[in-house]
């Protein structure tokens, strides 16, 4: 990392900054704090700073100094990408757009005082706050599972050491291995993600010449994203290797035992060589503790602006929000962040605003040169973000089209990461 340290506020510096900028004093510039430096937060910070031309002071609170994307982390698992190619620095957000980077975790929000408290105890004041905290995992949604158990049975649903652990376990398997995936219930980050991951794990086993290894997917859902496409792809590329079970087939997921490496359903106990447990999810803790989430664990928003339904000074974008018909995806977060950025600029700098519009596409790699996609356009309607039109790849498409779709997938990654991180 080559961050100019002067561009980072230390805890003490952040405190001094907040102390000088008391809400009661006249402000030279309105202040926006963004919590979370993933696709939603980094995009919001960049677009507010860029489009306000310095008229708004933007601070990004993110404890990590660099960000590894969840999107395309399955391609890392499959050996299609190296780690560096999915890891990005925040340098340009600071150097090109003047965003203040605060490498601390947010600990709490005082909504009455409009203050963010950092993990180091210092406070920062805001005029508008963007929450882009992503997901927390409900470890206890799978009996026997816990954060400690994820050292043995990785979830790998947040890109980082968990992803590298899963890759290491996958690469170490010998022929005849049994992989058991516990898939998450709706709603969760990246609907096709578990099934692209199954494809990538199967790709690795196949490439190593495994003939007797199996992947069993225990799903709490009756259907899966792009179901026909994935099942067609698994039969075509990995015949006999993948077995997907819905609740009617397994009778219910009863729990896991990390020390015994077992996964128990109502009908059977599987002794796994690799267990990938992806539990249920909810909005990040700071958002929930601040009263921004409802009983679902996710944060309701105004679909025309991404403003929190519970606080007029706070916007929630990305996985933490309730996005109506949109899936929880990086593409969605990026799209939502641009709407929030426009709304915030309009409020704080009286710049032009336009009707909200949203877009999403999710690409999934099944096997080398065989990629499918699903997506749509969305707009505010009937109190939610509603689909205007949607599309999905068709079964039986020509190999050349699937190859072009993979090329598009890689192009999208280059495009969206340039858009997010500068």
């Amino acid at each position, binding site marked *: 990392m080559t961050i100019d340290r002067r561009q980072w506020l230390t805890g003490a510096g952040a405190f001094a900054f907040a102390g000088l900028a008391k809400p009661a004093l006249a402000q030279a510039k309105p202040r926006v704090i963004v919590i979370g430096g993933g696709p939603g937060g980094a995009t919001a910070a960049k677009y507010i700073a860029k489009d306000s031309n310095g008229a708004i002071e933007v601070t990004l609170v993110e404890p990590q100094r660099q960000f590894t994307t969840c999107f395309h982390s399955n391609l890392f698992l499959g050996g299609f990408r190296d780690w560096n190619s999915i890891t990005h620095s925040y340098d340009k957000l600071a150097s090109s757009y003047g965003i203040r980077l605060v490498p601390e975790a947010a600990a709490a929000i005082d909504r009455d005082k409009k203050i963010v408290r950092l993990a180091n105890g210092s406070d920062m004041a805001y005029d508008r706050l963007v929450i882009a905290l992503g997901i927390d995992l409900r470890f206890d949604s799978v009996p026997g599972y816990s954060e400690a158990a994820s050292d043995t049975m990785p979830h790998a649903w947040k890109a980082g050491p968990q992803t590298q652990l899963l890759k290491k376990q996958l690469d170490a398997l010998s022929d005849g291995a049994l992989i058991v995936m516990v898939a998450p219930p709706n709603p969760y980050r990246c609907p096709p993600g578990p099934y692209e991951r199954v494809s990538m794990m199967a790709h690795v086993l196949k490439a190593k010449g495994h003939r007797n290894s199996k992947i069993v997917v225990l799903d709490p859902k009756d259907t899966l994203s792009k179901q026909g496409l994935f099942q067609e792809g698994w039969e075509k590329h990995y015949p006999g290797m993948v077995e997907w079970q819905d609740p009617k087939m397994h009778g219910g997921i009863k729990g896991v035992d990390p020390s015994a490496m077992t996964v128990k359903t109502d009908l059977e106990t599987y002794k796994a060589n690799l267990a990938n447990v992806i539990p249920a999810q909810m909005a990040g803790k700071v958002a929930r503790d601040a009263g921004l989430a409802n009983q679902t664990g996710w944060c309701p928003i105004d679909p025309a602006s991404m403003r929190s339904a519970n606080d007029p000074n706070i916007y929630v974008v990305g996985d933490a929000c309730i996005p109506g018909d949109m899936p929880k995806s990086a593409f969605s977060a990026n799209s939502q962040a641009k709407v929030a950025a426009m709304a915030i600029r309009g409020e704080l700098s009286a710049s032009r605003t336009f009707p909200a519009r949203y877009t999403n596409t999710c690409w999934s790699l099944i096997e080398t040169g065989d990629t499918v996609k699903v997506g749509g356009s969305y707009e505010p309607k009937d109190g939610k973000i509603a689909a205007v039109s949607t599309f999905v790849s068709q079964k039986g498409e020509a190999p050349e089209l699937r190859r072009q779709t993979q090329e598009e997938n890689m*192009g999208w990654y280059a495009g969206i990461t*340039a858009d997010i991180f500068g």
Partner: protein
Amino acid sequence: MAAKSSGIGLPARACLFVIFAAGLAHATGARAAGDRAYGEYLSSECVTCHLLGGRFAGIPPIIGWPEETFVAVMNEYRLKVRPNPVMQTLAGRLSDEEIAALAAYFGSLAAEPAAK
């Protein structure tokens, strides 16, 4: 598939397409006289995939095109003559005014110098 540059900086496929689509822009009455500032706002939807620097990384660059060309291409997607569901979906909800605004904005951008 690598797109070769033509004399006016368009991918070869796009140039062929311009010829194909030239009459279409006229037929639909779309004119390229767009609001560049509005186009810059609308462009945030495009740059999730298309690189602003003009590099081809799997998705065609769309900067520096003659505005009429941009309008013609977008109309092709809008009418589903050109087969990409992502672009058909996006173009399908753009008005003539919005397409003209995007054409004005992207048309005004120049490619960044190639990386050394």
